[in-house]
């Protein structure tokens, strides 16, 4: 770090409003050259908005930005790129059907590579240089959809470096990596920072902020709470700054959980195809007992979605059998699964889990509309739909101004409550929950986790599919690791080690 030079980034009094939300409220933020600076905050604290302003994607309503002491303004992303700011988005900004090289030259212009024609050979040479220098091997001719998540992230980082960025912003970069991959990423980042480049590391995970950063700035509800040297603080203090109170997440009580040994779900040698018709699940064997939470850990894209969809009837299996409370289900028929007591919280909440333009009340009867009392002889009863909504909104404390508002207007946490209210009120025997807390703030996360534990306590078998290893360790009785469409192993929670799980998630053990 060179403290005598002007800071790499200075943001003063940044304010950004969205309809109904004050996302950034007078933010002052400073990052030094060669520093790894963590931007810590809950989901919705305003981290992404701030970084989108710094990359020219949003324009601030108020405030000014200085890079290396000089005022700048970015009317468009291109201007930020030209000023040397590069962003690695959490949801990668890569065109899936393009090659690595094509993604790197997209929109790019500099002296060596700006002609009208594409020059694949020149580009590939430069990519090879970069990947050697930062120890990030990648094949420039591979198409993005053929790469693993970890490799795709490398492409994202290379893309930013290819454009000669001096300031790199990484948004939740570890959210889809195995613990080992994350450690590798940290080393790459240190290598980059050592070249006097500046790194802004956005995260809501305290441990990794402690592990990688030099300084931390904490955001809460669009405001800066403070900036501290990482060496002078600890996770407890950071957590308090981030949330504004002490946080203790709901955790499963230790000890053997399954009182009832009745089997809620059994998968026997199940195989299924993915979206493109290629095999995505191979020979899956798994049991979930009544009252038990089985966690499925793994990096995204290793068959999680297919697994959930095969159990809930949304996807046909190509082999094997799915047995719910002792009876086999035919498969490929979601209605059959619903009638057999399988509830499902999909990872795609808005779009699959709820119909976005339909009202909260209608979404709460998305499955129950077929049965009395909601409908009789094919006719709906609006009054009963409304009472049902009022009742569930109160029981699950869903924050919506009225049952008639369209679901898309709710916050992520409230949408998830709508989903849980609907699925749990159907008195299921089995619940499949995919990434049930991703994108939720601390408060909502805790409520969702509490509800899952309570549901298991009532004897419902739960299959918890999550990329968040901490979440699985906090809630599950047993943990299965999914890699490349296969179960790499099942361990009891008390025997589980993060290291070992990480290796299994990477397919190494």
């Amino acid at each position, binding site marked *: 770090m060179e403290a005598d030079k002007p800071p790499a980034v200075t943001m003063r009094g940044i304010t950004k409003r969205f309809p109904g939300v004050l996302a950034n409220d007078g933010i002052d933020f400073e990052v030094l050259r060669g520093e790894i600076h963590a931007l810590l905050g809950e989901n919705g604290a305003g981290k992404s908005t701030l970084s989108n302003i710094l990359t020219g994607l949003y324009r601030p309503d108020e405030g000014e930005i200085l890079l290396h002491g000089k005022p700048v303004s970015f009317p468009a992303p291109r201007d930020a790129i030209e000023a040397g700011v590069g962003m690695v988005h959490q949801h990668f900004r890569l065109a899936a059907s393009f090659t690595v090289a094509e993604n790197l030259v997209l929109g790019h212009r500099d002296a060596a590579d700006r002609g009208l024609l594409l020059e694949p050979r020149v580009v590939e040479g430069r990519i090879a240089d970069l990947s050697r220098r930062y120890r990030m091997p990648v094949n420039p001719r591979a198409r993005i959809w053929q790469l693993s998540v970890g490799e795709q992230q490398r492409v994202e980082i290379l893309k930013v470096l290819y454009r000669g960025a001096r300031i790199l912003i990484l948004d939740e970069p570890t959210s889809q990596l195995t613990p080992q991959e994350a450690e590798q990423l940290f080393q790459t980042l240190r290598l980059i920072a050592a070249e006097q480049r500046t790194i802004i590391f956005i995260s809501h995970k305290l441990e990794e902020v402690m592990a990688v950063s030099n300084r931390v700035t904490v955001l809460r509800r669009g405001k800066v709470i403070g900036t501290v040297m990482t060496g002078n603080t600890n996770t407890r203090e950071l957590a308090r700054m981030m949330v504004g109170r002490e946080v203790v997440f709901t955790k499963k009580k230790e000890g053997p959980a399954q009182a009832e040994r009745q089997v809620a779900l059994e998968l026997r040698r199940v195989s299924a195809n993915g979206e493109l018709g290629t095999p995505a699940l191979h020979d899956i064997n798994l049991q979930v007992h009544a009252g038990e939470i089985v966690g499925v850990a793994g990096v995204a894209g290793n068959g999680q979605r297919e697994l959930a969809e095969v159990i*809930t009837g949304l996807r046909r299996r190509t082999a094997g059998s799915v047995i719910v409370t002792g009876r086999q289900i035919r498969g490929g028929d979601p209605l059959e699964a619903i009638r057999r007591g399988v509830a*499902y919280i999909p990872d795609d909440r808005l779009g*699959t889990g*709820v119909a976005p*333009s339909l009202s909260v009340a209608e979404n709460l009867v998305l499955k129950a509309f077929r049965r009395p009392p909601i409908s009789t002889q094919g*006719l709906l009863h609006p009054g009963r739909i409304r009472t049902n909504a009022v009742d569930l909104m109160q029981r699950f404390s869903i924050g919506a101004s009225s049952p008639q508002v369209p679901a898309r207007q709710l916050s992520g946490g409230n949408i998830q409550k709508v989903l849980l209210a609907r699925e749990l009120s159907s008195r299921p025997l089995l619940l499949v929950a995919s990434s049930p807390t991703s994108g939720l703030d601390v408060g909502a996360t805790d409520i969702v986790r509490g509800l899952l534990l309570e549901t298991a306590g009532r004897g419902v078998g739960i299959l918890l599919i999550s990329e968040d290893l901490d979440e699985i360790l906090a809630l599950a009785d047993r943990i299965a690791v999914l890699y490349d469409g296969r179960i790499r192993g099942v361990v009891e929670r008390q025997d589980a080690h993060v290291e070992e799980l990480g290796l299994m998630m990477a397919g190494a053990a």
Partner: protein
Amino acid sequence: MIRIERRLTEARWLVVAVPAGSLLAAAFLSGIILALTGHDPIGTWARLLDRGFLAEGAMSATFVTATPLLLTGLAAAAAFRMQTWNIGAEGQLYLGAVGASGIGIALHDQSPVLIIPAMVIAGIVTGAAWAAIPGVLRAYTRTNEIITSLMLNYVAGLLMTYLIFDSHSYWRDLSTFTARVFPQGKYLSDSASWPSLGLAGIAIPFGFLLGMVAAAALWLIYSRTRFGFEARVIGDSRAAAHYAGIRTRRKIVAVMALSGALAGIGGASEIGDFRHVLDPRGLQQASFGYAGIVVAALARLNPFAVVIVAILLGGLSNAGFSLQGATFPAGLVGTLQGLILFCALAGELLVHYRIRFVRRAAPLARAPEKFGAA
């Protein structure tokens, strides 16, 4: 600088203001086109309004034109609500006319009590069957229904032409020498003429009354039945519908058939209320099916609004037909309909978004400076 922001709630008053504003804006824009081509916009508009709504007997004629528009408008609304794009109301209307005239000819010596319901049912069945073709292809082979339903419009038109002009079909009049040389369809008997309701000197055709009943039924289906609920979920998100265990394929076929049935009634009413003969040229020139899309969009797919909009656009079309000539060139009605739809689409933005004129944030008004440039 202009900024477009999503409104948190739909602005209610705009739901009425947008269609009304669209009509006015389209009138203005068409005035420019008229003036550019050497016509007097105000005079043309005055005659249009006079012939469409004000002149002696104009409203009765307008209702005759509004009847098929009401039914094809409902047909489009029924399908579009579920995001199923049935563009085939045109052909489904032809088929409805073929079916209804066929039955009408067959039952020519029966009483109206039998013959009229039979014609309506025939229109429903043939229209629904024709619409079910793109429906089945959409549901079971994922074939784009926009193109298939549209292609079938041309086929339906050719089918009618064949029946009257190039064959000795059941529909063709072969009883006289002139009819054999100058092909035309068999005229239906008087007992196949649909009645009309006289109201304040305006004759409201039976088909229009059927259309009003259909509008109410459509509203009921979409807001009060399981079927309609499922269709709305599918229209909003196919993924959510699949997730909720809704059988989307059957529903697509059913809604397409429903849509086709409504257009088919439109075809039947053209025969029963107005033409009393299968008239391929007349039906094809009217292009009620395409105009139905305009009606539905302007009514924002609300069945009751379709009734009102159908009367408004019916007046325009009616005036257009009767005024057609050197000073009122053909094509003006379609141009006008297109303009109305453009304006309605632009106005839709106002319903969902707020447009704000803001000054650029002051501190950022400086020219962009590149890092390292100085």
